[in-house]
Every structure is written in structure tokens, then in C-alpha cells.
């Protein structure tokens, strides 16, 4: 059991029982607010959970489930995932998808299928349909291989710098929502790191002693 005490300038000191800080920090990382529930700091637990998860899932919805994925493919190194991973378990499907597709397999939870690029893409016949979503209108009974968009899965197929690819189609289809979704989920992951810190060492409250020291410093300087 670890207890921290913050002496206040006015009123009683604030005493917080952090229980096992390491365990609390791990729980806080796994699920926003869980570490605080373990420490029986319920109000803050709810506050962290609602604030962080709401913007994470809002962002995920804006990006239609495609903005959180793990990829280190050339041309699509998804550094944002390192920030998104700060939220713990909610990004677990992205890790699962990365493992599932690492050997070239199809992702789980397929949301739609797309035309693959033809052999001589981007010049050859069929290039105009490459990477487009297969619908009843353009499908015409197509039964060949497809590229699949999976929930929290990296874009399938090759990534080009100057030609259309699946990632480019995501940006085209979802416009600014793809970037906003990425931003929201990145911010949610980073905010959860603050919650983990709070569960591990307690809040960064300014104590009576720190206030007095600041006043002394100010007075000696003036």
C-alpha cells in the first residue's frame, strides 16, 4: 500500500491511497479509468473513462474503423499507432489484425472488398477500377481475388507514392474525416498516458510547501 499526502494551504490535507501503484498503472493503461477504480477513486475513474473513450470511439467512427492500424510497410509506416496504443485494450484488434495479415492472409471483420490492381497497373486495362470498392453496380459478377478492408486492419495491397492505392482510397472516400479520426484517436491514446501517470504517482497537486517555496523565491527575486 502506498499513501500520498498533499498538505493544503487551507483545509484538511488530501490523502490518497494508491494501493499497488504498478498494478494500478497497468490497469489504467489497459482500460482508461480501470486503475482509478482499483484505487477506489471512482469519480476520477469515470471522468477518465468517459473523456478518453468517447473521443477514441468518436475518432474511430469518423474514420469508419480504419484509422487505427499497425503497419510498418514501406510507404505506410503508421507511427500514429504508437500514440494510439497508449489507450491499451481498445487497440487490441489492430494488433490481432497485424499478426493475422503479417503472412499475407486476409484480415478478420471484413467491412468491404476492393478490386486488386491489374498486372500492368496503372496503364493496363482494368486500372480505372483498381482499388475501388466492389459494389452491385460495378461488380458485374466479379469473382477474382479481392483486397479486403478489415476493422482496424492495415490497408491491403501495394502502397504507391504517386498512384492510387487502398490508403489513397481511404483518404479520398472519407475526406477530412480520416485525418480527424486519426487525430482524435492519437489524442485519446496520449491522454490515457496522463491517466496512467495519475494512477501511478497521484495527481500533480501543488502542496502548501511548494506554494510557500514559490512565494519565497518570488519575494527573494523582487
Amino acid at each position: 500500500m502506498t499513501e500520498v499526502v498533499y498538505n493544503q494551504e487551507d483545509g484538511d490535507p488530501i490523502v490518497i491511497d494508491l494501493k499497488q501503484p504498478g498494478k494500478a498503472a497497468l490497469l489504467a493503461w489497459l482500460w482508461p479509468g480501470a486503475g482509478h477504480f482499483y484505487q477506489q477513486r471512482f469519480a476520477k475513474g469515470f471522468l477518465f473513462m468517459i473523456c478518453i473513450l468517447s473521443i477514441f470511439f468518436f475518432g474511430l467512427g469518423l474514420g469508419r474503423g480504419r484509422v487505427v492500424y499497425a503497419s510498418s510497410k514501406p510507404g505506410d509506416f503508421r507511427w500514429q499507432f504508437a500514440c494510439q496504443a497508449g489507450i491499451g485494450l481498445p487497440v487490441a484488434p489492430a494488433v490481432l489484425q497485424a499478426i493475422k495479415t503479417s503472412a499475407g492472409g486476409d484480415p478478420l471483420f471484413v467491412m468491404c472488398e476492393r478490386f486488386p490492381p491489374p498486372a500492368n497497373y496503372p496503364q493496363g486495362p482494368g486500372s480505372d477500377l483498381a482499388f475501388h470498392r466492389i459494389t452491385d453496380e460495378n461488380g458485374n459478377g466479379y469473382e477474382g481475388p479481392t483486397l479486403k478492408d478489415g476493422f482496424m486492419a492495415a490497408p491491403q495491397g501495394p502502397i504507391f507514392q504517386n498512384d492510387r492505392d487502398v490508403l489513397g482510397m481511404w483518404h479520398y472516400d472519407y475526406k477530412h474525416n480520416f485525418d480527424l479520426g486519426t487525430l482524435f484517436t492519437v489524442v485519446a491514446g496520449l491522454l490515457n498516458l496522463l491517466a496512467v501517470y495519475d494512477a501511478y504517482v497521484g495527481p500533480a497537486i501543488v502542496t502548501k510547501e511548494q506554494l510557500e517555496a514559490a512565494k519565497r523565491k518570488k519575494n527573494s527575486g523582487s
Partner: protein
Amino acid sequence: MNENLAIVIAAAIPIPKLWYAVPLIVSISLVYGATRHEHLKPILIHSLRSAIWVTGFMAIIFGLIWLAGFWN
């Protein structure tokens, strides 16, 4: 600071994308406030201050970019 807030709100009405900043400002302010205090009341007060500060900062950047638009 309230004038800054009014400028941002007035500017946000014809630019719907600016409304996406609202949930971010609210969440960031509340989470940051919660890492500085333990009880709900000081958290809310700190959050309100942070939200006003962030909105004011955004208003200043907005103003600078808006002025830069005249630099042709």
C-alpha cells in the same frame, strides 16, 4: 479572454469543421485538470481555465492566419 472566445465561436459558425475542436478541448481540459487535482470541484475549475486558455490560443492563431491571408 471572453472576446477571444466570442471571436472563435463567431468564426466557427460558418466553418463547421471547427466544431470538431469542441470535444477535443473539453476532453483535454478535463483530463489535464484531473491530473492536477483530486476532487471534482477544483478539477472543473482548472478545466474551465484550461479550456478558455486553449480557446484563446486558438483564436490568436486563427487571427494570425486570417491576417496572413491579406499578405499577397
